[in-house]
C-alpha cells in the first residue's frame, strides 16, 4: 500500500531523515517509534504529500506522492501532531468543510457525517464551536476529519498525546478498529502503545531506521537470552550452586532484599527452564515462592537502539 524508497529530507543543511526505506501492506498498522526530533513527523509529512522529500520516492497505492499528488492525496487521511482545527467553526461545519475539500459529494458527506460523529463520540457537540472544546474532544474532531472520507491510508501523528487516560484507551480502541480494514501509519513515543496497537514497528533515530520488526520479534530478537526471576525460600549459599548446575542455565545472579532471596537466571537460547528450576528447588526441600519470565521490555530495547552503546 505504501512504499517508501530512499527518503532523505534536508532542512537547510541539516538532514531530518536519511535514506529511509519501508513498506506497509494493506490493512497493516505500522508504528513509528522514536525520540522527539527523530524524523517521525518529517516522514509523515512526506507520505501525506505535505512536502516532497529532497531525495527518494513514496508511492501510495501505486501513486507517487509528488508526481501524482492529487491521486495520492485522495487516498490519505491525516491527523497532524498539532490538531489543525478552525476554532471559530462548529464541529459539524468543520467536518462538512473538510469533507468537501476531500472531494466528497454533499450527499456522501451527509450520509457519512452521522457515522463518524458516532464513532468519535461527538454526538452532543455537533453544534459546539471547536474553540470551546477541551483538548480530548479536539483530538476526536481531528480523528473524525481524518477518517471522514474513508481513506485507504490513515496517517496519525502522535494520536494519543495530551489527552486523559480514559480517552487514550478509547482512542487506541478506535485506531485498532480502523486498522482492520485500513492501512494505518502512526507515530508515538509511548512504548506500550506500540506493542498494543501495531503489527509492525519502525524504530527511527536521528533520521535513520535503526530497527524494523513486529513488537514481539523485536523483543525476542534483541534479547537472545531469556531471563527468569525465581524467589526461593532457602539458604542462598546452597541454592545458588544448585541453580547454576541446571542444564541450560548460563548465569545466575542473586539479590537479597530483607530476607527475600531472588535469583535472576539467564537461560540459553530462550529455553523455557521453568520446570527444571521448580523441580530442582522442590527436590531440595526449599520453597518456591515465585517464578516468572522476564522479557526485555520495549523500553529497554528502545534505549538500546537509540543510545549509542554497543549491544
Amino acid at each position, binding site marked *: 500500500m505504501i512504499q517508501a524508497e530512499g527518503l532523505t529530507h534536508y532542512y537547510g543543511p541539516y538532514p531530518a531523515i536519511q535514506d529511509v526505506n519501508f513498506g506497509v501492506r494493506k490493512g497493516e498498522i505500522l508504528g513509528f517509534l522514536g525520540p522527539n526530533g527523530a524524523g517521525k513527523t518529517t516522514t509523515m509529512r512526506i507520505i501525506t504529500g505535505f512536502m516532497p522529500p529532497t531525495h527518494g520516492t513514496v508511492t501510495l497505492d501505486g501513486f507517487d506522492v509528488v508526481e501524482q499528488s492529487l491521486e495520492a492525496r485522495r487516498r490519505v487521511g491525516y491527523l497532524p501532531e498539532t490538531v*489543525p482545527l478552525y476554532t*471559530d467553526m462548529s464541529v459539524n461545519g468543520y467536518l462538512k468543510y*473538510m469533507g*468537501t475539500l*476531500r*472531494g466528497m459529494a454533499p450527499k456522501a458527506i451527509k450520509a457519512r457525517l452521522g457515522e463518524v460523529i458516532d464513532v468519535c463520540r461527538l454526538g452532543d457537540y455537533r453544534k459546539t464551536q471547536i474553540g470551546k472544546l477541551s483538548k480530548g474532544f479536539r483530538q476526536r474532531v481531528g480523528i473524525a*476529519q481524518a477518517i471522514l472520507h474513508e481513506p485507504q491510508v490513515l496517517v496519525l501523528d502522535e494520536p494519543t498525546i495530551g489527552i486523559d487516560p480514559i480517552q487514550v484507551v478509547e482512542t487506541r480502541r478506535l485506531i485498532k478498529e480502523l486498522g482492520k480494514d485500513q492501512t494505518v501509519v502512526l507515530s508515538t513515543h509511548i512504548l506500550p502503545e506500540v506493542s498494543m496497537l501495531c503489527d509492525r514497528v519502525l524504530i527511527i533515530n536521528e533520521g535513520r531506521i535503526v530497527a524494523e520488526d513486529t513488537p514481539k520479534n523485536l523483543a525476542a530478537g534483541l534479547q537472545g537470552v531469556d531471563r527468569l526471576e525465581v524467589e526461593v525460600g532457602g539458604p542462598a549459599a546452597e541454592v545458588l550452586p544448585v541453580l547454576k548446575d541446571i542444564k541450560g542455565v548460563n548465569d545466575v545472579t542473586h539479590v537479597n532484599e530483607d530476607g527475600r532471596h531472588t535469583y535472576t537466571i539467564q537461560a540459553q537460547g530462550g529455553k523455557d527452564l521453568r520446570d527444571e528450576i521448580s523441580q530442582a528447588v522442590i527436590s531440595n526441600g526449599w520453597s518456591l515462592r515465585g517464578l516468572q519470565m522476564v522479557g526485555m521490555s520495549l523500553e529497554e530495547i528502545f534505549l538500546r537502539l537509540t543510545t549509542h552503546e554497543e549491544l
Partner: protein
Amino acid sequence: MRTAQAVAWKEIQIYFSSPTAYIVGLIFLALTGFFFTQDLGDPFPEATLVPFFDGAIVMFILLAPALTMRLLAEESKLGTIELLLTSPVRDWEIIIGKYVASLTFFLVLVALSFFYAALLFVFADPDPGPIYAGYLGFILYGAAALAVGLLTSTMSNNQIVSAVVAMGILLALFFADRAFGSVSGLAGEIIGEMGVRGHFDDFSRGVIDTTNIVYFLSVIAFFLFLSIRTLESRRWR
C-alpha cells in the same frame, strides 16, 4: 472548482462573523461619508463622487491588507495549512477561493456606498458618466489591492507582517508616479506607468480607457499568480 467554492464560502462566513471585517466596514463607511460631505459646505457644491473616490482609494491602502492579512497567514499559524495542502485540492483553487471571498466582502462595502450616489441622484442632477466609471475604477483598484494583500498573506504566517508588507507595496504603487518622477528616460516612464493614481484618475473623470482596465487586470493577475506560486513553494521550504 467545487473545492474553490467551498474555500470561498467558508471564508465569506468567517468575514461576516468576524469583528475585523465589521471594523473595516465601519471605518470605510464613516470616513468615506466624511469625504463625501466635505465639499457640500461650498456655496456652489458640485454633484460629484470624486472626493469620495479619492478618499476611498487612499483608505484602501490600509483597509485592503486588514481584510486579507488573515486569509493564509492564519492557516499557517493554526496548522490547518497542513490539512489544506494534504487534501486533494489544487493550489490555485485555494488561492482563488480565498480571493473570491475577500472580493465578495469588498463588493458588499462598495454596494453600501451606493447610498452616496443615490443621495446625489435624488437631491441633485449629477453627470452619471464619472460616477459609473468611477465605481468601475474603484472596484478594479480594490480588487488589485486585495490581490496584493493575498500575496503577502501567503508569504508570511504572521498577520501583522503580512499587512505591513502589503501596505508598503500599495503605498509604493500609489506614489510611484511622484516618487520616481525625477527618474528620466524609459525607466522613469515605466515606473510612472506602474503608479495607481494615473490610471485611476481617468476613471473618476469619467473616462473608461482600455489601457487602464488592462493595467488593473494585469496587476490582479500578476499578484494572484505570485500567490499561487508562493503557496506551491511552501511545499519546498
